[in-house]
């Protein structure tokens, strides 16, 4: 992302119009491993089709799907047509455009454990390159089991596919989905194996939370306005609450979720990235590495808990049986594929402390969970109270002298809300808290791109700003590893919260010890 958008065409590209045209995308092939899987059907292919619909993809754009299921190119095209027409959101399905787009879809049946599959891919890429002129550019997208990431990267390396083919400015990139390891050690091992094949600059670790418009808008809000940054520190901010609540359970993913849990599934990646975005220092430029340097620096500043500190700073929860909206809900341990004695957390609340001058002693409370009262993701920044309570006797509402709150809403109603105190109209000086709301442009009714559209386009263009880097992944694992280690030694009295509530009482007690209370989103 350039700091100052260019507005004039360069002499080398006299037909460009930077003010009006989309960012240029180079011709390329996207090779999807796990092409018959759910993610490809629900997210990737609809996002790619949508990009084609908007004219964002270069002529000759190609997708090569790979999975074990035997299928012809035409079968694959038909499967993808069904998927796109079913899962495309907020957009019409244009049959004519699909016909054109589908000409660029190809399929290879192969097992990622088989070296022959990579050989077939190499040959197919050469054929397609000759007919569709892809400039030698290939984006490998690993939509497979995480345990196969390193193996696929090594297979690509052994087949000579990981290095550009020598055409001018051509590139090879690899995109991997979270989880990036299941702990610090495995994350390091995965990074090591990937980097033996691909340069770090060519590895795109996708965290779809960072692709959300509103998470990106945090940067615009913080660094595009002059008035907030002077307040953005320990002197004025009392504490920060980050909530990512889901109103549903594991929805048939019990077996997967049992291995992950809320801390690994949400906190280690999405929520720590959000925390880093809220708390990072401004970068000198808006280049990918400058922004990621600051995020990484912030993540490295998070206090690493000692084993004796974990109990006071982290709370695990697991839902039991209950009723939500009149419907009976099974306990997590009763879900299909889940161990009846499972110790997996379906709720996690953590107090993180950031050890730098800006944030010393400002707690960042993070919570996430399944079967909470509603689906909501937001960041609440609570400011310190006025130094002198001049109006302490003039509040009539139950909220009393509520401190100023700045709410950055990520979903579902993206926007910003500032809560402050105002005089109630009429005689006398009675005060009440009011909220000043701002809804992002995207939520005025305009369609905003899905996170996958944004991130796929960025990967094709080569903009890694919204992708996580090795040091960021390892720093965030470092922050949660002591909690995982400690929890592994514990036998929890699960279940400890009822579906439809805001989690276990211990989460309230954790925050109450510092004189705070969770905000009701």
């Amino acid at each position, binding site marked *: 992302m350039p700091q100052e958008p260019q507005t004039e065409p360069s002499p080398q*590209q006299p*037909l460009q119009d930077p003010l*009006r045209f989309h960012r240029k995308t180079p011709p390329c092939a996207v090779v999807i491993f796990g092409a018959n899987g759910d993610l490809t059907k629900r997210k990737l292919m609809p996002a790619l089709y949508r990009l084609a619909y908007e004219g964002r993809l270069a002529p000759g754009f190609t997708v090569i799907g790979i999975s074990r299921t035997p299928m012809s190119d035409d079968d694959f095209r038909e499967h993808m047509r069904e998927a796109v027409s079913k899962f495309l959101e907020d957009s019409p399905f244009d049959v004519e455009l699909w016909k054109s787009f589908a000409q660029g879809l190809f399929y290879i049946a192969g097992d990622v454990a088989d070296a022959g599959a990579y050989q077939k891919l190499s040959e197919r890429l050469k054929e397609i390159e000759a007919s569709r002129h892809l400039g030698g550019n290939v984006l490998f997208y690993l939509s497979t089991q995480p345990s196969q990431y390193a193996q696929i990267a090594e297979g690509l390396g052994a087949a000579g596919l990981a290095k550009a083919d020598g055409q001018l400015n051509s590139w090879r990139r690899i995109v991997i989905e979270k989880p990036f390891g299941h702990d610090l050690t495995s994350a390091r091992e995965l990074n090591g194996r990937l980097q033996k094949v691909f340069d770090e600059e060519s590895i795109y670790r996708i965290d779809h939370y960072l692709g959300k418009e509103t998470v990106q808008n945090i940067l615009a809000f913080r660094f595009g306005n002059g008035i907030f940054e002077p307040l953005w520190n320990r002197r004025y901010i009392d504490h920060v609450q980050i909530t990512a609540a889901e109103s549903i359970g594991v929805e048939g993913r019990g077996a997967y979720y049992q291995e992950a849990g809320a801390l690994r599934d949400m906190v280690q990646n999405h929520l720590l990235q959000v925390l880093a975005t809220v708390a990072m220092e401004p970068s000198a430029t808006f280049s990918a590495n400058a922004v990621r340097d600051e995020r990484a620096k912030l993540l490295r500043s998070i206090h690493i808990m000692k084993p004796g500190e974990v109990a006071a700073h982290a709370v695990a929860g697991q839902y039991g049986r209950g009723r939500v909206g009149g419907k009976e809900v099974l306990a997590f341990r009763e879900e299909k594929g889940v161990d009846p004695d499972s110790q997996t957390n379906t709720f996690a609340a953590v107090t993180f402390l950031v050890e730098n001058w800006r944030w010393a002693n400002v707690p960042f409370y993070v919570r996430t969970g399944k079967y909470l009262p509603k689906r909501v993701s937001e960041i609440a920044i609570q400011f310190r109270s006025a130094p002198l309570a001049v109006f302490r006797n003039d509040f009539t509402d139950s909220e009393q002298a509520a401190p100023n709150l700045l709410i950055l809403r990520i979903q579902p109603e993206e926007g910003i809300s500032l809560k402050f105190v105002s005089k109630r109209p009429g005689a006398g000086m009675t005060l009440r808290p009011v909220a000043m709301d701002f809804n992002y*442009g995207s939520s005025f009714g305009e369609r905003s791109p899905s996170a996958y559209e944004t991130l796929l386009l960025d990967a094709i263009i080569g903009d890694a700003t919204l992708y996580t880097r090795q040091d960021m992944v390892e720093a965030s694992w470092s922050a949660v590893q002591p909690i995982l280690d400690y929890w592994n030694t514990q036998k929890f009295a699960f279940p400890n919260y009822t579906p439809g509530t805001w989690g276990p009482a211990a989460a309230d007690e954790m925050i109450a010890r510092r004189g705070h209370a969770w905000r009701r989103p």
Partner: protein
Amino acid sequence: MAATITPDKILHEFSELWTSTAKAESGDSNGVLRACSMTLIAFVDDEDDAAPLAETIALLMRAHPSRAIVVRLREDPDHLESRVFAQCWMPFGHNQQVCCEQVELTVSLNRLEDALSIVSPLEAPDLPRVVWIRSTRLSRAPDLSGVLKLGDKLIVDSARAGSPAFADLRALVAAGLIVGDLAWTRITHLRQLLAQLLEGGDLAAIKKVVIEHCGTEPGPEAKYMQAWLRTGLPAAAVDFQQTDPSGVGDIKGIRIDSEKSDAMDIRVDSDCARYQTGYLHERASFSSPTDHLLLSEELSIIKHDPVFEQTLRRMTIWTPAF
């Protein structure tokens, strides 16, 4: 006695409008979100069909919430009246209405000056102001300087009757005004496709470009396309070719001949282009160029547009040889 309206009266009506809208939205809803990012002043003819115009403005509000001031110009003298209302919508999945305010002034051409004195104080402070001229009648006003002073940007549509001539637009740009022309906006998709197809090629090897058009003469879009290609492809002769005498001069196709690569042929429809270059036969979808989408693009650029201005300077201005 001629009717009078004061800006204060309209501002008071705005205030009452918000109070009543907020009251109506009590109960379970989250109330009303008042949104404003600019002032949009539209000059239209009174007989202009109100429904499509209202729809255009309502759709525009989603991306560019504005205080909209619609000035409806009519022929019969001494008419001046105003109406204030809110444009509200509930974004999908939300439980809070978003509302923008709109005032409609219906005014006779002979009282344009009175209308301008009302419009100016109604502009939302500290926010950009855009004037959109859709009226064919406005060009007969004795002095347009007051209209030009209302906005930070002026938007016209050369494809509509009564629009300023290219020479006038060029003079306005030369005078430092920010100008947008929806005829230019209409070809953004096609220009982008061309830029993409020619990306990385040897532009100096392109010697001939033919812009095919319908109608007896090329329309403003075709003329803009010619000027833009002449600027970007200085070695090429860029000419017009009529393909069908019926129609209004729309671009129907573009053929590009290069000394070093395959010829390129693009067939253009209102919502797509089919192109062929060597091995590739593909289709690019375009959004239908509705006023709402064209205006939305122009409202996103409230600053000088160097490519447009350069193209405008390059336009061939035909002067009838009387």
